[in-house]
């Protein structure tokens, strides 16, 4: 029988040093990577919003195969199943409001047309109760060293829904220097999407009552990212990324409308939303990994800005606390803030001419959001792990009311709350 002693700290250090020398990257690598050529992750996400809004059940399976010499193949398959009610963009009103589900081909029931109507009670937020969607998405990535100091990676993704298809590809190159303490990275990506909404894509900005629909539309996203990773200390790793992307094509949400109100605030009609056909986004992302004894802090900040005048700040912190016996607990806090798109409005005024671009999509509004959560993990077998994550997300819009008489006292853009539960299992062979 062969007795195996647990590795000493010196052994671990030498193993790590060898691994780092061979890895060709300043990023931290597991000393066990070479011994665990196949990693399997299986996750199940449950996401549920308040007030009967969207809920999601999402299984995710990921395989990572090490073919030796740091040549890695990574594939992920995601299935999304969504249901519930989703806001259609209109504001609450003092009188009942009737809308047609997007799959309808006419607002008025008539032979040869499909019409599914839903009515919203006075004071309630208009939401389409028939929202249902399934999504299948796959990612495949390959990375390999090029010489001693460079790593090449490339991959692609594809996803499909009933009303949306997306394919994309990306490639990146990283270079290590300064005794592999510094890594410079650069990458590009290209995405092509096709949008064919249920019932047809509405003509952006058109009168809702006319129900003008057109055929499928497309959009492309072209992006680039450069980054630098720096080992600061034995217990401190830092990365700074700058990302840029440009979207072009049909960027309008085909299911969103915007209310038109008169001078008293009474809703007199609706228009389909309309967004510019170009959008440029930039972001700076700064992340730190800091080991404080057996505890690990992950702290990041992201500043974003786009050509629709949306500025955003995100601060994210996770603290992984080792409880011993292969267990850990990880509290998580995230704070997010964004300003509104320059064409965002809660509603349009009947007396003013209709603008070229308009949207009441709550995602384009000014709001602050917080996420608070906790994750608990336990090792299972050799390098396996089982974990459970519980989080609460809350979004608080800045602009929720109007001084117009008919709208006073109505919550025009209510807070959003969501619960996130994720069960994860990881193993290696």
């Amino acid at each position: 029988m062969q007795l195996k002693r647990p590795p000493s700290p010196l052994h671990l250090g030498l193993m790590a040093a060898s691994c780092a020398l061979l890895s060709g990257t300043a990023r931290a690598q597991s000393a066990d990577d070479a011994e665990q050529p196949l990693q399997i992750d299986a996750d199940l996400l449950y996401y549920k919003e308040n007030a009967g809004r969207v809920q999601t059940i999402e299984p995710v399976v990921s395989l990572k195969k090490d073919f030796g010499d740091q040549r890695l193949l990574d594939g992920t398959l995601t299935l999304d199943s969504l249901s519930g009610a989703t806001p259609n963009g209109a504001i609450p009103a003092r009188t009942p409001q009737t809308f047609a589900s997007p799959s309808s081909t006419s607002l008025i029931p008539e032979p040869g047309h499909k019409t599914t109507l839903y009515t919203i009670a006075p004071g309630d937020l208009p939401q389409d109760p028939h929202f249902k969607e399934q999504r299948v998405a796959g990612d495949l990535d390959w990375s390999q060293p090029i010489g001693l100091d460079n790593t090449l990676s490339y991959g692609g993704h594809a996803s499909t829904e009933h009303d949306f298809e997306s394919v994309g590809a990306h490639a990146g190159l990283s270079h290590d220097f300064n005794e592999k303490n510094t890594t410079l990275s650069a990458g590009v990506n290209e995405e092509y999407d096709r949008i064919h909404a249920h019932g047809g894509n509405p003509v952006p900005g058109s009168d809702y009552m006319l129900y003008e629909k057109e055929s499928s539309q497309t959009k492309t996203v072209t992006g680039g990212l450069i980054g630098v990773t720096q080992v600061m200390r034995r217990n401190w790793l830092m990365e700074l990324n700058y990302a840029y992307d440009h979207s072009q094509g049909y960027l309008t949400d085909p299911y969103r409308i915007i209310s038109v109100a008169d001078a008293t605030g009474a809703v007199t009609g609706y228009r389909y939303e309309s967004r510019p056909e170009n959008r440029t986004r930039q972001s700076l992302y700064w992340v730190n990994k800091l080991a404080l004894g057996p505890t690990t802090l992950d702290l990041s900040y992201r500043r974003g800005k786009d050509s629709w005048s949306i500025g955003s700040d995100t601060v994210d912190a996770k603290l992984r606390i080792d409880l011993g016996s292969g267990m850990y607990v990880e509290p998580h806090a995230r704070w997010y803030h964004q300003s509104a798109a320059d064409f965002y409005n809660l509603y349009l005024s009947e007396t003013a001419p209709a603008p070229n671009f308009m949207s009441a999509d709550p995602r384009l509004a000014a709001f602050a959001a917080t996420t608070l959560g906790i994750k608990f993990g336990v090792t299972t077998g050799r390098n396996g792990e089982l974990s459970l994550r519980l989080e609460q997300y809350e979004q608080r819009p800045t602009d929720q009311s109007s001084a117009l008489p008919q709208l006073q006292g109505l919550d025009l853009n209510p807070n959003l709350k969501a619960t996130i539960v994720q069960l994860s299992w990881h193993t290696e062979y």
Partner: protein
Amino acid sequence: MRIQSYVRLAIPLGLMFFACGCTAMGVKPWQREILARPEMALNAEPIDAAIDDHIYFSKEAASGGRSFGGGGCGCN
């Protein structure tokens, strides 16, 4: 869109990075035992990160910045 403001911010940050990286910062290969811990990887929880990116992509106007990845979504 004021690209200049980002460039103004990125240049000093980048210079600081390189200036520091080439001198006082960094470790020797035999000093990487802490950095080699799996939880010290910058993307130590890739599935969590991908799920979060997808949730926030569907609820907020800003997304990404960390890396490329994931698929498009006609999220509602």
